[in-house]
C-alpha cells in the first residue's frame, strides 16, 4: 500500500509504485480535474503541484511522490473561494473549452511562487510545455500577469 498526501488529505492505494500518478488521481481518488492530454509529459494537461512545484502527473510514478504534498486543481483554493490565479483566468477570459485550464492554472501558480513578477519572456519559457489547442495563449499570459500583480499587492 502506498500513502499519498493530496490536497491535505491522506489516501492509500494498492496500485504498484511505478504506476503514473495521473490515473490514480483520476480513477481511484476521483480527482478528475487533472486531465489526460498526451501521456508523455509534453502537453501539461495533467499538471499538479508536488511540494509547490509543477509536475506532469502522467509521467510521474507513485514512488516519486510518496510522503510529498500533492495539490490538484480541486485543492488549490478552499471551498467556495478562488485562488487569485483562478480569478485572473476568469477575468481575462483565458479559456475556451477549458480542458487545458487546470494544468495552465497550476503551472502558473508554480511559476508565480518562484517568480512573483515574471516578464512575458519568462512566462513563455515556463509555460511552453503547456498546450492550449484552442489557442488562448495571449489571454493566459495576460491572466498570469494580472494575477502576479494582484498577489504582490496582497503579500
Amino acid at each position, binding site marked *: 500500500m502506498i500513502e499519498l498526501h493530496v490536497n491535505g488529505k491522506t489516501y492509500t492505494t494498492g496500485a504498484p509504485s511505478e504506476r503514473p500518478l495521473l*490515473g490514480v488521481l483520476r*480513477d481511484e481518488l476521483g480527482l478528475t480535474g487533472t486531465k489526460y492530454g498526451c*501521456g508523455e509529459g509534453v502537453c501539461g494537461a495533467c499538471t499538479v503541484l508536488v511540494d509547490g512545484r509543477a509536475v506532469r502527473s502522467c509521467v510521474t510514478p507513485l514512488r516519486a511522490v510518496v510522503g510529498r504534498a500533492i495539490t490538484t486543481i480541486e485543492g488549490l483554493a478552499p471551498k467556495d473561494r*478562488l485562488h487569485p490565479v483562478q480569478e485572473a483566468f476568469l477575468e481575462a477570459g483565458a479559456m*475556451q473549452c477549458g480542458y487545458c485550464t487546470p494544468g495552465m492554472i497550476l503551472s502558473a501558480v508554480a511559476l508565480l511562487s518562484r517568480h512573483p513578477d515574471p516578464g512575458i519572456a519568462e*512566462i513563455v519559457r515556463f509555460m511552453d510545455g503547456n498546450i492550449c489547442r484552442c489557442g488562448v495563449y*495571449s489571454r493566459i499570459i495576460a491572466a498570469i500577469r494580472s494575477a502576479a500583480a494582484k498577489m504582490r499587492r496582497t503579500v
Partner: protein
Amino acid sequence: MTPAGLWSHAVMDRREFFRTLGGVVVLLTAEPLEAQQGSGASQAAPRDIAAWLHIGEDNVTTVFTGKVEVGQDIRTSLAQAVAEELHAPVSSIRLVMGDTDRVPFDMGTFGSRTTPFMAPQLRRAAAAMRQVLAELAAERWGCSPEAVTIEAGLVKGPAGKTATFSELTKGQRILKEIGESTPLARPEHWKTLGSSVPKANGVALVTGRHEFPSDIRLPGMLYGKVLRPPAFGATLVSADPSQAERIPGVTVVREGNFIGAAAPDEATASQAVAAIRAEWKLTPQPRAAELFDYLKKNPAPMEGFGGASRHVVGDVSQGLAAADHQLRQSYTVAYIAHAPLEPRAAVAHWENGKLTVWTGTQRPFGVRSELARAFGVSETQVRVIVPDTGSGYGGKHAGDAAIEAARLARAAGKPVKVVWTREEEFTWAYFRPAGVIEVTSGVRRDGIVTAWEFHNYNSGPAAIRTPYAIEHQHIEFHPARSPLRQGSYRALAATANHFARETHMDELAALVGMDPLEFRLKNSKDPRLRAVLAAAAEKFGWSRRQKASGTGFGVAAGFEKGGYVATCAEVSVDRTSGAVRVVRVVEAFECGAIVNPDHLRSQVEGCIVMGLGGALFEAIEFEDGRILNPRFSNYRVPRFSDLPQIEVVLLDRKDLPPAGGGETPIVGIAPAVGNAVFGAVGVRLRALPLVPHGLKT
C-alpha cells in the same frame, strides 16, 4: 413520462407531457431545415419542435437545445439570446444541451450555424414567453398586457405592482406554440446581446469541477481498451484471447474486426489487449510520396455536399486571351489533425435494453443513429448525452468511441468507459483532407484579373468561389478517394481554397508590379470585403510601416459562412538557419451584428493561433497505412513560444444579422504568412505547411 423519455414519444404525447410540467412552456415549431452540409450522414428526422423553453416555479428559465458546447461559448451566447428577448438577467437562464432524450432534434454543432439559425429560434421562443408573462400579469392585475413591462426579470404593472416570473407561472399549465414569424429585438436596441457577458460555466472550469466526457464515472464502471490494427485497411484474421481472459476481471469482446477488453481499471485493460494474440491481414496502402498524384488520378463519385461542383461564368479562354500575363500554378495542402486536447471519450451504460452514452461529439443525434444501427435497436432505445467537451474543431462528428464503449459494456454487463490515447486520437480519428489546387489565370497590365480557372482535388468545396469580380471564371471541385480517413475541420476546405486563391492573387500582383493590397482592392467590388481589408491594413500600418531586412508583410482576405476576414502578417526570416517567425498578425473580422465582443475576439485569436499551426508546420506523416507522428512530441502544434503579437479589429454591423465567428477567422492566416515570407525573401511557398523544417533557400 419523465423528461428523460420525452423525445421517444409521439408528438401528441409530448404535448401532453409539456402540459403536465407546470409553469409555462413555449414550443417553437419550425420548418424543416434544408439538408445541412458537413455532417456526414444526414437524417430525416421529425422536426416538429425546434426549441423549447420552460419557466418553472424557481424563477429559472430552462432552454433545451441540441447544440453542444465545445469551447465556442454558445452556452453563453444562447443564454444571452434568451435573456435579451425575455428581458431577464442572463444568470436566470439555464441551458440543457446535447441530451437526445430532453432536447429537440438537431443536426449538429458545426458550420457556424448556431448563431445565425439556433439563436434566432430561441429568441423567438423567449419573446413569446415574455408575451405570455405579460398576459398572465395583465389578468392578475386587471389591466391590459400593454400596460405591463418586463425589466431585468421583474414584471411591472400599473400603480407600482410587481411580480417575479415564478409568482406568475405558479400553478399555471400553459403550453404555447409559436411559429418562426415572432418579431425580435433589433440589434440597435440590444441590451444583453452585443455585450461581453462572461463565460457561462467559467467557475466550474477553473476549479476543475466541470465534468468533461472523459471525467464521467458511474458506479461499478469498467475501463475499456481496443486492440487497434497495425495499419489502415488491415482485417482481423484470427485472435487468441485466452491469455487475456485469464486476467481476473477481464472481459474480451470480439465482433468482426473489433476486438477489445474491459477491466476494472485502465492499466489492466491495457494489459489485457496487449495479451491478445491477433493476426492481421494487411492490404497495400497508397504511399505518401505519391499522395497528390494519387488524389488527381482517383476521382470519387460523390453526391450532394462533398460531391463534385462546378461554377462557370463567361469563358476562361476569352479571359486569358484578353490578359497581358498568364499564370498557372499548383498548390497543395497536407492532411492535418484536429488534436483536440481532450481525446475522444465515452461512457456507455445498458439498462433494461436501453443504452445511455455520455460522449464528446458535435452530433449527438448523429451518434445516436450510429449506435442504434450498430446494435440493431431503435433510436428511442438510445440516449446520448454530451457534457461540455474539450473542444472539437470539426473533429468530433463520428461516434467511434461511443460504439466501442457500448460494445464492451453490453458484453461485460456493466458500464464501460473508453478514453482514446493521444496516439489513437492521432491515428484513428479523421483528418482534414489533403488536396491539390491548380489555378490558371490571366491579368491585364493595369491589374484587372480577366480569367480565373480553379480546380480543387479532394480538399473540398467550401469557399471555393472567388470573392473578386472576375469576368471569366471556371471553378471546380473534384472529389477523390482519400488514402486516409478524412472529414470536417474548422472552416472545412475554406482554409485550403483561401490559401491557393490568396497566394495566387499575390503572385498576380507581383507579376504586374502592384502593391498586394491595392491589387485586391482593385479587383474587389464587395463593400464588406473592402471594409475588412481597409480596417486590417489601417491597423497594421500597411502603407506606413518600414520593413527591416529579413522581414516581410503579407495580406490575405476572404469570405465564408457570413463572415468577412482580412489578415495582415509580419514575418521575420533568418536566412542562415531558415527559421521563420511570425512576429505580428492583425486581423479584421466582420460577421454582422456582434453577439458577444469578448468571446468573438477570443475566437478570432484562437483561429489565428490554430491556423498558424497548419500554416507553418502541422502535417500528418504516413507510410504503409501507418501514422508516423501520432504524438504531441512529433506532431508539432502551436505553443506559447509560437505566439505572435495579435491585434484583432472587429467590425460591428448592427444592420446585418449575426453570423458565426468560430471558423472563418482561420482562413486568412496561412496565405497572409506565405505572402509575407515572399515579401521578406522573395521565395514563393505553395504548399501547406509552409515551412515544416524551416525555409530552405
